[in-house]
């Protein structure tokens, strides 16, 4: 630590206002504040500064994602060996997953940091720490077989057009990680949907057990409806508990509801995640799920028969509830607005999932849609407050 301190102290004069390398000052700041608590002091007005600056709260979010990540890594290996019919130990599965997942994380961070540092240098502001989180979110919400260069392109696009054009961290209208996924989804549909991409090695098609199917539970439910027989690639039925634990094919980090819930606890205890949004998102999803169950008899859409509580543990719903919809920048800011925002996001998630035949998953589209509406919701919540208080004020004035 001492050596590091000395290194920064030695470098500092060179990047100060008149230094030779002043143009690199944002890069310097970025690394400096990563290792040390900033020593800047607020000079005007009354402010409270504590150790939890945005860089540290971001780091906590990344920490909260770790259980889901590690489970995802194991799950990738598990399904790979299931598909190839090889008996494998826990370590083999984990190692296989590691080999598959780490490059995706690296691709995402490389793209993200490249964009962040370039923009910071060009615009002469500090490097935004927001990417710490987005860079980890992106790998967790893509299928394991996605080509690395696509991850790179999508992340760069999402940061540039989802964030930087609006003015960088804190200014973005859309959730950058979901923007990256949406970009992938629409730009490279063949690599982002279908039955072959969710299990490592399946799209290459070598050494796969005969008759193995890589369909996700949602794809099965969309095709056949819920007959109690959502099953794995070999045709063995899943229990609700399997799905809750996450031993199912899907995007890398989205499958295990249990691990995501551990993350949720971390976020809630540290006060970084907002419980109102999480809760209302789940309630919205449940409401739509129950509504569809009730209407299932009147339609020939078999997907509608999938019980509402299954929707919560399948696909990206849990992950969306904890890590996506709660993004403090793109979510609604007012308390009442958060309830409305979360509820509608959950509601539309299940609606798109079930009623739109083209997309077996709706969480991404629904959250992006609500991101766009969040400022509007806030606007009307605030207008409502103003009206009520005005009415009260005029009433008491009489």
């Amino acid at each position: 630590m001492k050596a590091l301190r000395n290194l920064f102290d030695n470098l500092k004069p060179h990047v100060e206002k008149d230094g030779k390398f002043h143009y690199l000052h944002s890069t310097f700041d970025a690394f400096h504040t990563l290792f040390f608590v900033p020593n800047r002091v607020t000079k005007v007005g009354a402010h409270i500064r504590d150790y939890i600056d945005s860089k540290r709260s971001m780091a906590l979010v990344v920490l909260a994602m770790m259980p889901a990540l590690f489970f995802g890594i194991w799950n990738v290996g598990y399904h790979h060996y299931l598909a190839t019919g090889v008996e494998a130990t826990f370590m083999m599965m984990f190692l296989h997953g590691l080999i598959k997942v780490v490059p995706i994380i690296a691709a995402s961070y490389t793209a993200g940091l490249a964009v962040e540092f370039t923009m910071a240098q060009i615009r002469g502001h500090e490097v935004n720490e927001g990417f710490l989180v987005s860079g980890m979110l992106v790998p967790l919400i893509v299928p394991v077989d996605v080509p690395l260069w696509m991850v790179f392109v999508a992340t760069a696009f999402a940061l540039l057009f989802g964030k930087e054009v609006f003015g960088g961290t804190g200014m973005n209208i859309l959730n950058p990680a979901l923007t990256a996924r949406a970009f992938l989804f629409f730009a490279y549909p063949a690599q982002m949907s279908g039955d072959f991409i969710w299990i490592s090695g399946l799209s290459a098609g070598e050494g796969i057990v005969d008759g193995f199917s890589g369909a996700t539970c949602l794809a099965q439910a969309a095709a056949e409806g819920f007959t109690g027989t959502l099953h794995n690639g070999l045709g063995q039925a899943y229990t609700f508990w399997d799905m809750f634990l996450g031993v199912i094919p899907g995007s890398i980090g989205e499958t295990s509801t249990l691990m995501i819930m551990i993350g949720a606890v971390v976020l809630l205890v540290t006060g970084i995640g907002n419980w109102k949004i999480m809760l209302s998102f789940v309630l919205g999803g449940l409401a739509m799920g129950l509504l569809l169950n009730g209407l299932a008899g009147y339609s020939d859409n078999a997907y509608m028969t999938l019980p509402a509580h299954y929707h919560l543990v399948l696909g990206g719903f849990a992950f969306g509830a904890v890590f996506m919809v709660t993004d403090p920048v793109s979510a609604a800011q007012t308390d009442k607005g958060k309830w409305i925002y979360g509820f509608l996001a959950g509601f539309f998630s299940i609606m798109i999932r079930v009623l739109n035949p083209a997309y077996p998953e709706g969480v991404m589209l629904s959250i992006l849609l609500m991101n766009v509406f969040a400022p509007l919701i806030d606007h009307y919540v605030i207008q409502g407050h103003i009206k009520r208080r005005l009415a009260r004020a005029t009433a008491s004035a009489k």
Partner: protein
Amino acid sequence: MDTNSNSYIYIFSSVMVIIVAAALSLAATGLKERQDKNVEIEKKQNLLSCVLIESTVEDAEAKFDQHIVEKYTIDHQGKVVDAVDPFTIDMKAELAKSIEERHMPVFIAKLDDGSTKTIIPVRGTGLWGPIWGYVSLNDDNKTIYGAVFDHKSETPGLGAEISSYDQFQKQFEGKTIELGSYDPAKEAKQQAPVLAVTKGMGEGNPNAVDGISGGTITSKGVQYMLTDCLGFFSPYFNQTH
């Protein structure tokens, strides 16, 4: 001159309308023949490509006259209707009618090797909009010789693949259609497919082709389209045998 008086405005607009109308009708009538020809050539090219004959805008007419030897309009009982020109039938309008009133065209092609093929136009609905195409059958009226499909707005890379010969259309060749259980009273969705279009079922199965991964709805659309349009011809096929 007062350009804002009412009489001036009336005169001005009358003159303008007459000039514009004359110019437009001149353009429309003068170019009509060429335009109709373009539409016709395109249709002929599609029909030819369905029996695997390549043609260009220039030689489409000649090749069409050479290879397409007969064309009929068929009603739901398989009888030939003389009153309607099969070449000008609007598939969209016909499919909107009830089965009893429907007239469908069929074309007979004679290839260089002397064999005859029956070409049947098909039209249906994909995921986002209409899909259509032509299917040609060998003279047993069961085996598919070739198929072409096109679409208006299916998803690029997924459903849109139905218009690709290598990815999709090629596998129809040599498959057989099953008309035995076709029931004109039922909707296509409710009956056994004339030819199944389902993922992973095509290989080794003479009565099915592989659907498109990620394009399930479009694939099903193709299946329903084939069931509807080929099924209509089952009385006709029975008669010709």
